[in-house]
């Protein structure tokens, strides 16, 4: 196993990617990994927010058309991610944080697939009815899993000590955000909740 990883790490491709002074080598692969993430996770987040009841005026069914863009984002990241792993195969494969990230990414993709089946393929979206609890659970799960994937992906580059501290800091920051966003908003302006939802769903789907 380790010999194989060493082989990958020392391949001429890895050497070129690592050592080429060209900005089109390593930096561009890293940048593509960030851009792919932005489109895949960004659109996933917007669909999840809509399923959770934000911007209810948006008809859900046509959001199914966003999946091809997310597929492109996914494949850009699968390919760029493989290239980045090949660079430091041994380093990554012996890093627990890397496994946390990959598990979270895999689970997030499975969640997204289930969400698509539950909401779009089943026809629930077209009827524009109240979504099932299952759809909301899947939406929250996919958001949480992407958060874990992104935080752990970033922390692959850090030591266990720093990673642990950062993970705690992220949880605290997220808790503060949720308290301010949902409890705070209700305390300060209880009447604005309807305005946030957007226009009523009608005339949406032809």
């Amino acid at each position, binding site marked *: 196993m380790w010999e194989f990883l060493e082989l990958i790490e020392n391949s001429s491709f890895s050497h070129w990617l690592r050592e080429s002074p060209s*900005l089109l080598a390593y*930096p*561009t692969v*890293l*940048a593509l990994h*960030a*851009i792919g*993430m*932005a*489109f895949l*996770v*960004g*659109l*996933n*987040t*917007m669909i999840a*927010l*809509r399923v959770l009841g*934000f*911007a*209810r*005026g*948006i*008809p859900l*069914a*046509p*959001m*199914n*058309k*966003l999946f091809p*863009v997310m597929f492109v984002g996914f494949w850009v990241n699968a390919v760029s991610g493989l290239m980045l792993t090949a660079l430091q195969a041994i380093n990554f494969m012996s890093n627990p944080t890397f496994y946390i990230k990959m598990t979270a990414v895999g689970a997030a993709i499975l969640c997204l697939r289930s969400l698509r089946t539950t909401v779009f393929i089943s026809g629930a979206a077209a009827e524009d009815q109240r979504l099932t609890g299952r759809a909301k659970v899947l939406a929250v799960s996919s958001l949480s899993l*992407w*958060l874990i994937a*992104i*935080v752990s992906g*970033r*922390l692959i580059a*850090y030591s266990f*000590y*720093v*990673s642990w*501290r*950062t993970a*705690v*800091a*992220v949880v605290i*920051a997220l808790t503060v955000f949720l308290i301010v966003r949902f409890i705070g908003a209700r305390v300060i302006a209880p009447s604005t909740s309807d305005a*946030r*939802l*957007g*226009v009523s769903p009608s*005339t*949406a*789907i*032809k």
Partner: protein
Amino acid sequence: MESTLRYLLDWPAFDLFVTQNAWAWPLAETAHFIGLILLIGAVGLFDLRILGLAKQIPIAPLRRLLPWGVFGFSLCVLSGMTFVAAIPSNFGTHPYNVLTTNVWLQLKLLFILLAGLNLAAFYVTGMSRAVESLRANDDAPLLARGIAGVSVFLWAGVIYLGRLIPWDVG
């Protein structure tokens, strides 16, 4: 000018805080990623609809997602300012030197400025109002499509240029 900028960019106590708390820098990096995801998610979705993707969505309700994009952008600005303020202890140089020599950072800031001007153009040319009335399956005016396309290009460019900043050519 230089001394003023050097003074304005100097935050020794904040710099020290980031140095002494190992989690501060990676937390800012994480916030930067989450911010760009919300920005691309909300603004990208709006732009893609104007460009003709998922045309069955009327434009007006899509605006309800834009505050998430604004929130994402704010996260990026705050975390980005953290990076700049913590330059001295992380890279042993003054932020002023980085801002004046790092071409990628300069290009990134230029792209953000252009994205801002593009957004202003969206309002000034009346396109913002023109798309407001678009119902399901309506096509956006050509100018609105152009502005939306430029927006997607510029924001993707901002991410690309941002990722190049560590490869300092200055």
